[in-house]
């Protein structure tokens, strides 16, 4: 330590080396490590929060999906009942009774599976068959369909409940109902290693014209389904994919819509 005396001379009293001076590089390293740890912790906490939010989102969207899966469209339901009523009123009791049974099966399947978000492709396809039978009752056999399944093993693979059906319903409601003449619908299920590939193709009026007719967009069911898929894809390695293609005939006019859905094969 240096002090100035009254004559202005500088006098050195004592000089000591700081005992920590020798460890200064260690200290620098320590401070650096602490900083890094601090930031890592923040990132880690953020990650946990995000992860939890993702899980909550997944839970919410799967609950929403479930709630929409556990009901039949009221509009569809009451129109079917009206048709069955018409058959009874006309005295076609046998036929009316048959359709009543079919419709009961649909209701039962939907109600009995409540609580599950996913079920087997086999269940899905038999539900679609019943659904198309009802639509053909309403629209006097307007719709012709073909379902092909490339491998019997596919029947036991899983799909979100009523996912394929809601695309089939969309095809009918927005594509085929507005079409005069022959209405065709193809459903194709194909085996892939990571995915189940589903194709729904119609020869309806196409999306462009459908948008002009319909004042409302695609139904609430499909919106919920899309949100569920978005959240699912952020959380799992094998992802869903939906591809919509507008089909065009030789003359360039719309000749229908193809929907290609990839469902993760490991869906439980």
């Amino acid at each position, binding site marked *: 330590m240096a002090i100035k005396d009254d004559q202005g001379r500088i006098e050195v009293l004592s000089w000591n080396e700081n005992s920590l001076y020798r460890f200064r590089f260690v200290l620098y390293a320590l401070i650096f490590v602490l900083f890094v740890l601090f930031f890592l912790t923040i990132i880690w906490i953020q990650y946990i929060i995000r992860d939890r939010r993702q899980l909550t989102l997944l839970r919410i969207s799967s609950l929403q999906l479930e709630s929409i899966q556990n009901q039949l469209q009221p*509009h569809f339901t009451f129109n079917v*009942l009206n048709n*069955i009523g018409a058959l009874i*009123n006309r005295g076609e009791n046998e036929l009316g009774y048959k359709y009543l049974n079919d419709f009961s099966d649909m209701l039962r399947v939907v109600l009995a599976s409540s609580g599950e978000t996913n079920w087997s492709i086999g269940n899905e396809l038999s539900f679609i068959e019943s659904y198309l039978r009802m639509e053909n009752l309403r629209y006097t056999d307007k719709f012709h369909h073909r379902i092909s399944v490339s491998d019997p093993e596919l029947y036991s693979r899983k799909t979100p409940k009523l996912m394929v059906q809601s695309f089939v319903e969309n095809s009918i409601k927005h594509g085929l109902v507005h079409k005069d003449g022959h209405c065709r619908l193809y459903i194709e299920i194909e085996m892939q290693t990571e995915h189940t590939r589903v194709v729904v193709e119609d020869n309806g009026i196409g999306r462009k014209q459908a948008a002009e007719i319909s004042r409302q967009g695609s139904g609430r069911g499909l919106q919920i389904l899309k949100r569920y898929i978005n959240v699912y894809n952020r959380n799992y390695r094998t992802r869903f994919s939906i591809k919509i293609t507008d089909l065009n005939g030789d003359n360039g006019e719309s000749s229908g819509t193809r929907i290609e859905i990839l469902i993760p094969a490991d869906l439980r």
Partner: protein
Amino acid sequence: MGNLTLVIIDDELNARQLLEEIISESPSFSIVASCADVDTAFREIQSQRPDAVLLDIQLPKKDGFFLVEMMKTLDHIPEIIFVTAYEQYAIRAIKAAAFDYLLKPVRKDELRSSLDKLLLKKRNSMQRARIENLLKGLERRDKLRFNDREGYHLVDPSDILFITASGNYCEVEIINGKNLLVSLNLGKIEKSLPASMFSRVSRSCIINTDYLFRIDRKKMTCLLKNDEIFECVCSKSYLKALEDKF
């Protein structure tokens, strides 16, 4: 009395047939057309001019509200009864001034009571139109034209209290204390007056019976009242005819 004519619009054959069957059980209603889409329906409505349409809302290509919009251009707009599966459109339907809104599966009694209400409404309005026509015919009293030297007066017959003859002239007493001297004889004037309102009480006097309130057989006078009281002399032979009126 006329039947109620109906057009059915529904894209489902069974739904149309069901309505047709229920409606045909009653002879008061007749279905003039049954259509699966809006364009066909509009053509039928234009040519058949039905009293009412039974209209589904979700239809191919154009929906039920579209038809309502189209019908606004017609000079004869039928009543609208919506028949639909689900109440999601109820508010809009009511705003579109629907007569009624029925849900599928259709209840027979609901449909019938709705149609009955419509029939009643139609009959009432027909009755009203007839009565109005009748009243119009009764009330159709043209104004009378009385010439004088300068020009002419136009007088509503119901404003005339009485008319008395004096030589070749007639004096027309009008409410509010006015009177006119007219160069016409009483017989000519009488012909132009509405017979239901005027009566001759003597050779020289015609009164408006709307203002008559007293006949005195002893003095042989009749009294008319408006703002003031007027006394007219009657003669026996005309009085009888007058009495037949009351």
